[in-house]
């Protein structure tokens, strides 16, 4: 089972990102589960969402305690206390940010990859919602699902021009990270 934790701020589409990733896995015939950190949410407040992807049905309904990957939709959260709590020793961190991050200053020793997801979204969608670009980058880095699965999941949610723009964004974001860099971490079991 691969478990992913998404951190962001209310309004950045954190829960939607989790749902889209789970739907992409489902589109590939995998079992998946996605849920927010339970409780009231409001714009600007730190929000967490979780995804489980596996080849067998998921029965548990408990929180993800030991994820293999973190997605940070807001780079400032990289310095929030406890952000890497539970992240597996081989776990990786994907961050929405437009500048390189020195490994020594962040991530508690975990490899960090950055992608300017909000700027890309601004360019392709006209609004700074980083989730689609980050999902495309995660799938490219881990190769846990084909990119087409993400495209099919996006097609469940968007149509027409907005879908086309999202698909262009997916292809652009995928080109900006090294394919398969995190494949090994994705193959490691996190349960």
């Amino acid at each position, binding site marked *: 089972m691969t478990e992913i934790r998404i951190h962001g701020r209310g309004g950045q589409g954190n829960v939607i990102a989790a*749902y889209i990733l789970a739907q992409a896995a489902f589109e590939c015939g995998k079992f998946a589960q996605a*849920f927010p950190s339970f409780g009231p949410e409001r714009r600007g407040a730190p929000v967490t969402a979780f995804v489980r992807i596996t080849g067998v049905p998921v029965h548990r309904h408990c929180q993800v305690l030991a994820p293999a990957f973190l997605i940070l939709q807001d780079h400032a959260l990289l310095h929030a206390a406890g952000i890497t709590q539970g992240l597996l020793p081989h776990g990786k961190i994907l961050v929405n940010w437009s500048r390189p991050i020195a490994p020594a200053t962040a991530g508690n020793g975990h490899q960090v990859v950055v992608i300017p997801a909000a700027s890309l979204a601004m360019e392709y969608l006209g609004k700074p919602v980083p989730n689609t670009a980050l999902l495309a980058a995660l799938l490219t880095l881990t190769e846990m699902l084909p990119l087409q699965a993400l495209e099919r999941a996006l097609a469940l949610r968007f149509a027409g021009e907005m879908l086309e723009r999202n698909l262009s964004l997916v292809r652009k974001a995928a080109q900006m990270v090294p394919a398969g860099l995190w494949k090994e971490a994705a193959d490691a079991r996190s349960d």
Partner: protein
Amino acid sequence: MRAAIEGSAAIARAVAMCRPQVVSAYPITPQTHIVEALARMIAQGELRAELVSVESEFSAASVVLGAAAAGSRAYTATSAQGLLLMTEVLYNIGGLRIPVVMTCANRAIGAPVSAWNDQQDSMAMRDTGWLQLYCADNQEAVDTTIQAFRIAERTELPVMVCVDGYVLTHTLEPIDLPSQEQVDAFLPPYRFSRALDPRNPISIGNLVTPEYYSEARHAHHQAILRAREEIIAADRDWAAICGRSWDGLLAVDGPPDARLGILTIGSVMGTLFDARQAHPEFGAVKLIKLRAMRPFPVAELIGACAGLSDLIVLERALSPGGGGIVGAEVRAALFEAPSRPKIHNFAAGLGGRDMPLDLYPRLLARIAHEAPVQFAIFDLEPERLPPQER
């Protein structure tokens, strides 16, 4: 059709396929997504129903009471304080024996205020004279919602379908949604034998003097006990259509000769199921899922507990000054059994505290070297309390 879909969206789709004629609700987290989805379907013309917007849960319950009494299939949903605000009306719906279906998206009640999940809200309503069915996952929530309308209409009793808030309502997972044809084949149009009709006037809700009150209460109690057959039949008949059974009143999973058992209610069941696979060192453990809280399945429970030396009752509610609510009912039911296990009653997961996989080994390790406790909160962290409150 199988889809990866949010629990609330799936429940709303199930309700819509049951063709309700009146929907009335007041928004409260975590119920909101369900009624928002229904309101959208009605606004877009996908569902032909009257949506009655009200100023409180008291009015929402009153609207569905009136609508169902007048012969409409009626639905509402609420949580926590919203459910408590309905209390007076829920007793009336129960006592008048009006078929209404409600989803309770379970949430802790205040004070202290909590927005998170436990089952203290619906447990506080167990004496309202409604049938209560609890769901372990969103697939069961979909199927139970559909079954609930048939149960309600055949028994002429209201049904509360209890679904853990957030843990199920806000979780996206693969769910088989039935077709409209399947639901139509299962659920005929609603006809209420006592419908209010100006051409054939009757009165309901009259003052009842001491000469008849006991008889009305007895009849209500007996009707709820008899509803067990309709709950079993609805599950069996729906399974014949869609291939999924939820074992009627109570589900048992595990070898019949197991000596240890855990009885629970709601969404923690799946977590225990996965944890049991990960912890074979504890040997054979029977998992017992209480689906019907009302009527309480005494005979099925006695059967499920046969051969057990120890039974853990794990619940997400308590009666302050009393102890476990499910635990007390399980003890009472097993008192007359020819042999009964030692009962260890714990609450956990109150006010949204996570119920992780390691709950399973910790529970089993604790009962292995400890005399049965009458009741305790298992995941309590006493160091958070001042010494005099521990």
